[in-house]
């Protein structure tokens, strides 16, 4: 069995955002593997460890040269090898899904893990778009997974609740917080990861181009009043807050 786990390199969630030259500034900022993708890497490793037959976990990223760091993190967690489709061009989700699908075909992949939402695009689309290109089924927003004899069962979130499901491989699965606890790479594994295979492929080999053009980027700033009240005297603080809500904000009657 071969498992592909797709990794994106994004701004660390704790970093503030600012705009530079019409784009969100990433230079000199802390960039990490998207936390949503860590659940996918972890789940792939768990499936490999629990598999009856030998399984291989391949990490894939599409992005600029620096994305290698995110792939090295996946390798340090335990992925067997990595592929970086290198490009500096801004691509949209639909374009990236074509790269992922082509890579999955050429690597003869049985199962693909992707984050349920990317922390840079705020997109939910990569999993479903990839599945459509491969004509595979998809299970999105999974919170529990078991694989037995090529049948994947688990639980996932849907409109207004959750569902248990069963689906035969090959399939695309998107992950979320709560699916598992991603492991921390140990120092020996970080050292080992430096020697693992990381293949670079230029984007032009995949013949894709963006369908969306970004025409404006703006940091969403809402001026907040940041009116802080000391709560030592609970009664007085509560009275003040209720008064502010009533007369200043006008949100309660």
């Amino acid at each position, binding site marked *: 069995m071969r498992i592909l786990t797709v990794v994106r390199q994004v701004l660390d*969630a704790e970093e503030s*955002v600012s705009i530079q030259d019409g784009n969100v500034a990433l230079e000199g900022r802390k960039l990490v593997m998207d936390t949503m993708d860590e659940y996918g890497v972890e789940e792939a490793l768990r499936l490999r460890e629990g598999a009856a037959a030998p399984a291989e976990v391949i990490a894939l990223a599409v992005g600029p040269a620096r994305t290698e760091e995110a792939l090295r993190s996946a390798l340090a967690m335990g992925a067997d090898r990595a592929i970086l489709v290198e490009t500096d061009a801004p691509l949209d989700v639909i374009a990236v899904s074509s790269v992922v699908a082509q890579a999955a075909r050429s690597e003869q992949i049985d199962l693909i893990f992707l984050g349920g939402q990317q*922390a840079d695009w705020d997109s939910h689309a990569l999993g479903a778009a990839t599945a459509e290109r491969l004509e595979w089924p998809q299970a999105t927003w999974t919170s529990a997974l078991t694989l037995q004899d090529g049948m994947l069962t688990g639980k996932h*979130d849907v409109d207004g609740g959750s569902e248990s499901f069963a689906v035969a491989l090959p399939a695309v699965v998107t992950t979320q917080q709560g699916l598992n606890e991603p492991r921390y790479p140990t120092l020996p594994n970080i050292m080992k990861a430096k020697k693992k295979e990381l293949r670079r492929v230029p984007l032009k080999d995949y013949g894709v181009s963006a369908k969306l*053009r*970004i025409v404006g980027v703006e940091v969403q700033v809402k001026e*907040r009043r940041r009116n*802080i009240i000391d709560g030592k005297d609970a009664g007085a603080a509560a009275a003040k807050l209720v008064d502010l*809500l009533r007369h200043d*904000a006008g949100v309660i009657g």
Partner: protein
Amino acid sequence: MILLVVEYSNGKVSKSTLEMTTAARGMGREGPITLLVLGSGVASVAEQAAFFADQVLVADKPELAQYDPEVWASAVAQIAREGEAHTVLIGGSRSGREYSPRVAVKLDAPLIEDAISLTGRSGALVAAHYTFLSRVTETVEAEGPICVVTVKPGAFAAAQPANAAGEQYDAELDLPQPRLRVTGKTAEKSERISLADADLVVSGGRGVDSPEGFKQLVEALADQLGAAVGATRAIVDAGWRPYSEQVGQTGKTVQPKAYIAVGISGAVQHLSGMNKSKFIVAINKDANAPIFKIADYGIVGDVHQIIPAMITELRK
């Protein structure tokens, strides 16, 4: 034509459908607004929908009794192709955002997700949407004969019905078999007003200390205010509250007039689900909690004392 996929629940057209109608009417693109109703036993949904459209296409089939991403994508793409739609509007619900990418790939169309504004401009569609965990507003332009758009719930006002109903037609569809087998469902119900519809939201986090603390503080305050109840991922994961109440990156996004955060420290993933609220009120014992940075009013203090005091004050 502009094709709009109707969202409904319990036989009633959802607010999101009316919001998409507003987006469709206001985007300045030519062509009739066509509403598509997919489901089984959906005659009354189609009747309601007809007052918001030039025409309604209805696919009322037993095979459509249950939502499936592949079946829905196939149906929408077929109708869009046959009707030569230039814009396909799909709700920004979990399911809408799950099957819309398949529609875009089938139609070789660009996909705009979670649009908060939408304007047609000389052959191109321009839309704004949030990125970077809702901290950035990005404007994108899509060219080409057809574009698929999901519309963010709450971003557009609900449309008013027309005086006369549009014509209804039966849609002929060739549907695939679903491959994801659903083996069980856990629906989450609440007696309270839903998070999506509420003007006021009271949310709780770890600072309420226990499931009982949540009831005594968050639920009690919400009931006093007639507010909806929300929760952080941490306490949903801990099993204190149902997933349906989760606010944040992997839960619901809310935009109420006031959001009251009780014992919530303010992880960025939570903030991305509520940072568009008109007013944000936070009560937390840690003066350095990140929630205070985006709060209009904050109380640094013990939620176990302040919330009961607020309830007493409100009852006065």
